[in-house]
């Protein structure tokens, strides 16, 4: 079922790349349309899965990845429609397509532990996924900032110079994406902590819940992520770390997020799995 959005995303990715190279407005509109169709199909898929299992499907890592992709596609579309800048698509779509491949090839089964049957769980996961989508945008904005910065600094005005928005705009969008991501990350973590404490009392027999602590790599890295983005915001405000440094930080932050999201979720986490 995840194949249709995957195919549409992949097609959109190709068309975004053509648009980036050729800069034809009509090609750009086609790319946006394809992405929009992909996101709509994906909305439908997630809606169907929600009806099927009677809750939003992200209790297993693959479905969480699919939901993340869906949120990223929507956030990117929002960014594109509000700023009228299509150049970022060629950087975002590879993430979307690459991650959407996971649920396509490893669908996983949505069979959550009954202990997860709480509204808090959905707030926790949804906030974190949305935070990660924002960080993905920020990371790509940071990457493009660095590419463009390098070209202007070295006085080789070439490929990216003619295609990307100005440094100022990239920096401003990056800052906004980091703030939004940080807010949702904070919300997600706080809800997670509070709710774990409650659930422990309710389900004393659940070994996962009892073992949940900072020693779990997934929880630990989430806290590291939070620290990195908190520092990025603090440094921007007080140390004047805007522009290139902010760009570096947000790219670094996103690498940590991806690390936590994929290898850690699938292989390393000890207590953070509820199947």
């Amino acid at each position, binding site marked *: 079922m995840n194949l249709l959005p995957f195919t549409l995303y992949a097609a959109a990715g190709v068309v975004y790349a053509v648009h980036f190279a050729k*800069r*034809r*407005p009509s090609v750009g509109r086609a790319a946006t349309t394809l992405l929009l169709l992909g996101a709509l199909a994906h909305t439908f898929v997630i809606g169907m899965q929600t009806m099927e299992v009677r809750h939003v499907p992200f209790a297993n890592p693959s479905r969480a990845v699919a939901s993340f992709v869906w949120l990223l596609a929507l956030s990117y579309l929002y960014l594109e429609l509000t700023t009228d800048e299509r150049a970022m698509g060629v950087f975002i779509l590879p993430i979307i397509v690459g991650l959407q491949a996971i649920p396509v090839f490893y669908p996983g089964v949505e069979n959550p532990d009954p202990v997860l049957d709480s509204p808090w769980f959905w707030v926790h996961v949804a906030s974190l996924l949305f935070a990660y989508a924002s960080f993905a945008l920020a990371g790509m904005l940071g990457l493009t900032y660095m590419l*463009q910065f390098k070209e*202007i*600094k070295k*006085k080789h*005005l070439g490929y990216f*110079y*003619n295609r990307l*928005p*100005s*440094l*100022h*705009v990239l920096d*401003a969008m990056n800052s906004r994406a980091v703030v939004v991501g940080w807010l949702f990350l904070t919300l997600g973590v706080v809800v997670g902590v509070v709710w774990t404490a409650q659930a422990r009392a309710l389900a004393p027999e659940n070994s996962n819940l009892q073992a949940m602590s900072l020693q779990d790599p997934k929880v630990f890295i989430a806290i590291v992520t939070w620290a990195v983005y908190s520092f990025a915001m603090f440094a921007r405000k007080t140390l*004047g*770390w*805007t*522009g*290139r440094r902010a760009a570096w930080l947000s790219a670094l932050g996103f690498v940590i997020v991806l690390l936590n999201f994929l290898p850690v979720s699938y292989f390393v986490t000890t207590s953070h799995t509820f199947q």
Partner: protein
Amino acid sequence: MHVFLLGVSHRTAPVDLRERLDFASRDLGAAVEALATRPSAAESVVLSTCNRSEIYVASSDPDRAREELTAFLSEYHALPAAAFTPHLFSRDNEAAVRHLFRVAAGLDSLVVGEPQILGQVKDAFQTAADRRCTGPTLSKLFHWSFVVGKRVRTETGLGEGAVSVSFAAVALARKIFGRLEGRRVLVVGAGEIATLTAQHLRTNGVAEILVTSRTQAHADTLAETVNGRSLAWDDMAQGLALADIVVTATGSPRPIITRAQAEAVTRKRRPDPLFIIDMAVPRDVEPSVGDLDQVFLYNVDDLQTIVQENLTRRSSEVTRAEAIVAEELAKFSAWQRSRSAVPTVVALRERFDRIRRSELQRLDGKLAGLTPEAKARVDEVTRLIVEKLLLEPTEQLKGLPDEETQVAYTEAINRLFRLRAGEPAPDPDDTATEVTPADRRGK
């Protein structure tokens, strides 16, 4: 109706002659009105810029149009025709259309791809249209040329990249800062280059321009012309701390901004980037200043290199732009051919319909017994037969591939059906008498 063009451009005439044939400095509208009184210039547009004066008319007789337009140029500008005829160029029909498309695309400009020309073409058309000097042919032609200009601009890199040093500097500033509104500029030196760049930045909406020069009076003068504020020479460091963009263009033999100074200033500044444009030769800013984080330093050679690259890139886009012109020219010509078929098609339709109606009238007596519904039905059926018979020939005639074939076909139809204007149309009753009674019985 053919398009005919007569004029001078930077390719055919020296600047002093172009100046004497210029329309834009005087009332262009009045000129078009005066022109439109000539018989072959009933539809006319005058395009006059500093690089060209071109008259476009819709006329089917190019030789006569050439004569009349030459006479008009001579009278209007009070110049003997002999003074400019060697420099005139003319284009007829497709060549004229192609020329206008190339002009609108910026392909015929002195600086290929320069952006103003499309606006000038639009203005030229609007002026003529306001005076009701345009008609269906030129109206369609010019609107089509706007499309060509827009397509070339959006689909090729022909107009991309600055092709002068001060434009290149502003383009870079925009790439760093986005919009320049709210940005502060410090101009060091008050020479010609400094003035030009400052004015350019001003028109791009910078918030404040600070000017400093070793000679205070020069700084004051420049500050006044660009609506800025002058700063004492000794307060330059203060200006550096405030500015986002610094333009230096002094005649100083030694650098004015050293690395040590710049470092001290950037420590105090807001963390935003600092863009320094060193227009001076020898340089005013130590090159190592460019190594500082958040400082972008460009000297005049760097900007010149950018300009050169842009010019090269533009010329490599010419082929793509020419392809668009050729494509649109083909479409326009097809439209024109389909349009020139219209009078024949209309005449043919009228002829067929007249025959139909007269036949119905003749049969009126025999049809008297029918109910009104049945009569309406008969009318409808005959109408449909005529329409269906005409449908295919009409389509074929409109879609003919080239003008020669079109003329031949139109001619043939005109002859076969005796449609030619001026000839009396055969009386429908005559045609009716050609049908023998035996035929009628056979119906």
